[in-house]
């Protein structure tokens, strides 16, 4: 367990991809089965513990520490697992116990009755050092976010065995922890395991944000443009299993299987065999709806016919990865596109539409189009357009974010000036700063103008700016509610944020009746008195479909 703990502790701090891979290669090469397999599962997100809720951890620690000291410590550290790992009283038996491997810990946790879990956890915590306790608590609460994607872990495996990472992806979906068959194969001791999944996910290709200098160095004739829709990136894959049955799957861009939430899409793919890449959208009566509509369909385990009728999903398809029993990813974009057009035509489904492609006579023409898509599409559809995608005609489909092939050119975000109202200590990287901010805009109240909260932002600022805001927060606190501080927000005293966001829609969960999408602090307006901040009417108008340019 301590080896795994040391690994993820170090990985959590390591920013460099190559260095991360090196740490992983070293770990996989020197750690025995099944520990390394469970470590791989922990990183790939295939290890599932549903047993330890934060409440259980809180009760374990409250039996062992003074509540005031715990509260002060938690407030300081900002992370529950870490606070408990640090405060857990040292045990006299720690050195006497034999160190348990990760595999043994996993086995103990899965084979123990729910009622006995607290005692087991306490026992395990007694036997570990601080890093070990932290890693175990993160593992069992599902909070293990260490910046390692399943893809990176597989890349390390591939590098260690000197093979292509795609070869691992091909067999991955048929495997389960602790992946002993996989390691045997990688070490040359057994043949490749069979892929149990006839419709596997293939890693997606991502784009770079285009920069001003790119317009100078790139020739627009080498590229085509598409709309960048404000939906979610998906991959639809179909294949035939050993019994001859067709299996169709819908994956998120990270490879998460979301088929169950979209039976309408799965139905529409009837008869299809291959893998396509596209944007999942809500399309009603032939019109693309904004992201707010799509949100009604996301993160649902079950979907009712009523919901599907109200928010009909569709895929706007833009690429082809696999078809006719063949991998198409090495072929140029234009060739893939041609075959894609034929395949989509055969499907004859309003749920599967082609993403329109435009030639780019010059970057100026594209700039005009991007600024007002209203010329090409309906105003409502324009709402669902985030900008343009620019793709090289001859680009192969490469996993990851290759340079120089695909670019995104976003529309300018919405901008509003809002006043800081409440601050809360952040989590993770920023837990010793006040870094979660609630901001508001003016409205007419019973006793004249008042601020109403309209959103929260956690990022957008530099570390330097964060330190400045943090100082302001500490100096201008007027009230405390547990971990939340109310910050002075009067017409002439307070801090104004320029908030950028991607969209806004009605919401019943917020006092203002509005919810922003992806809000972030784009500038600190120390120069602006709160009285000059925006009013709620501005936001209501944006929500109704108008647009304010930055």
């Amino acid at each position, binding site marked *: 367990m301590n080896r795994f703990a040391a690994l993820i502790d170090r990985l959590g701090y*390591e*920013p460099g991809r190559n260095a991360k891979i090196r740490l992983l290669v070293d770990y996989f090469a020197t750690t025995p089965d099944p520990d390394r397999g469970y470590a791989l599962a922990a990183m790939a997100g295939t290890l599932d513990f549903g047993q330890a809720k934060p409440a259980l951890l809180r009760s374990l620690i409250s039996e062992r520490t*003074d509540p005031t*000291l715990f509260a*002060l410590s938690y407030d*300081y*550290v900002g992370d529950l697992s870490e606070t408990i790992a*640090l*405060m857990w009283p040292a045990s006299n038996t720690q050195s006497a116990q034999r160190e348990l491997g990760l595999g043994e810990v996993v086995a103990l946790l899965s084979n123990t009755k729910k009622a006995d879990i607290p005692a087991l956890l306490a026992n395990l915590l007694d036997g570990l050092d601080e890093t070990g306790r932290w890693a175990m608590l993160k593992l069992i609460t599902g909070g293990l976010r260490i910046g390692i994607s399943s893809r990176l872990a597989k890349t390390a495996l591939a590098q260690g065995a000197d093979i292509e990472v795609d070869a691992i992806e091909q067999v991955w979906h048929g495997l389960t922890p602790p992946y002993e068959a996989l390691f045997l194969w990688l070490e040359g001791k057994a043949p490749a395991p069979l892929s149990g999944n006839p419709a596997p996910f293939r890693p997606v290709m991502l784009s770079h944000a285009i920069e001003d200098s790119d317009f100078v160095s790139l020739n627009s004739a080498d590229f085509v443009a598409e709309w960048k829709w404000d939906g979610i990136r998906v991959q639809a894959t179909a294949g035939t299993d050993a019994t001859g049955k067709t299996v169709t799957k819908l994956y998120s861009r990270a490879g998460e299987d979301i088929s169950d939430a979209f039976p309408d899409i799965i139905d529409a793919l009837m008869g299809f065999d291959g893998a396509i890449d596209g944007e999942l959208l809500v399309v009603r009566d032939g019109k693309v709806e904004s992201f707010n509509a799509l949100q009604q369909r996301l993160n649902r385990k079950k979907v009712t016919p009523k919901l599907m009728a109200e928010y009909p999903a569709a895929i706007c398809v833009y690429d082809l990865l696999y078809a006719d029993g063949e991998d198409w990813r090495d072929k140029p974009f234009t060739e893939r596109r041609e075959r894609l057009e034929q395949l989509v035509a055969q499907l004859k489904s309003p749920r599967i539409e082609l993403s329109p492609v435009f030639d780019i006579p010059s970057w100026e023409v594209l700039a005009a189009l991007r600024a007002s898509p209203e010329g090409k599409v309906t105003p409502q559809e324009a709402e669902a357009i985030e900008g343009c995608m620019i793709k090289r005609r001859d680009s192969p489909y490469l996993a990851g974010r290759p340079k120089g092939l695909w670019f995104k050119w976003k529309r300018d975000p919405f901008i509003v000036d809002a006043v800081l109202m409440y601050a809360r200590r952040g989590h993770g*990287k920023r837990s010793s700063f006040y870094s979660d901010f609630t901001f508001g805009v003016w409205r007419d109240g019973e006793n004249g103008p008042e601020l109403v909260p309209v959103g929260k932002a956690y990022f957008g600022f530099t570390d330097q700016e964060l330190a400045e805001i943090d100082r302001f927060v500490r100096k201008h606190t007027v009230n405390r509610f547990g971990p939340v501080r109310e910050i002075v927000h009067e017409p002439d005293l307070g801090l104004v944020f320029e908030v950028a966001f991607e969209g806004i829609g009605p919401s019943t969960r917020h006092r203002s009746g509005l919810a922003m999408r992806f809000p972030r602090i784009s500038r600190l307006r120390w120069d602006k008195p709160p009285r000059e901040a925006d009013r709620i009417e501005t936001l209501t108008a944006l929500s109704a479909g108008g647009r304010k340019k930055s």
Partner: protein
Amino acid sequence: MRPADLLIPTPAGLYCPPADVFIDPVRPVARALITHGHSDHARAGHGAVLATRETLDMMAIRYGEGFTGERQTAKLGLPVDINGVRFSFHPAGHVLGSAQIAVEANGLRIVASGDYKRALDPTCAPFEVLRCDVFITEATFGLPVFTHPEAGLEVAKLLRSIALFPERAHLVGAYSLGKAQRVIAEIRQAGCDETIYLHGAMEKLTAYYAEQGSKLGVLRPMAGSDRQAMQGAIILCPPSAIQDVWSRKFADPVTCFASGWMRIRARARQRGVELPLIVSDHADWPELQQTIRETEASEIWVTHGQEDALVHWCQSIGLAARPLNMVGYSDDGDAEPEAPKGTP
């Protein structure tokens, strides 16, 4: 005599009215007693300074010979009488020359401990427990989440990293008075004899430590050395240098930071540290508790740091305790503030 008649917190620092002296004053005063050389405790511009020889030497190195009007060397354990008040200096285990100051009059004894730690440090004399009526303690790491591991284990982490990344320079951020020299001494104790490189800001004080007998091995200034040819080398620098342009001239360095704050992951991430080394020159929570108990003091005054938790704990075991709410001392512990204005 009540404790408040002997020592009171004032905006300039702890003041002893009968002797008319201040301990670690943050403003220029006529007569100052100084516990140790860190710049938030030892400032320039006083009329007279009474401190250990090492503290006086280091103040002169930092501020120049004219840092005070008069200087008087305090010998450890030897009382000095000022207007009927007896002052004596005793090792605090914090940095070279660091001392606690015991203040006694009419049978009342108050100990101002300055900054201190209990863990062994090869570069300075160990902390000496002083029985007293009132114990004045810091609380830099005054929360139960702070338990410093043995420094040797942290240095082992550093040496393992060099073995895994032998082509990368390892930049170790460490405060230039005390921490840097302790880290070097610990590296030597771990059996590593490689040349260690020093950022210009720590050359003088490190040379002083070596002169005073710390075993620091072969050291070379970074200035004039080729930054591209530092594969697998250890380079000590002030923490601020880890993030500034100075560090960018190294090819893909591993950035390390030796500090008690590295216990908290968020703190380490905030500073962009890749290899946090939990090495502190302040007492951790168990050491604070141990020390408070061993002094047998019935009253505890808490100066700077996380005073809420420590005051709460003292009260929970039946001790009278209060925060002094002193300003001017870094509650960041080893984050030494910039040298005060007006000093060279």
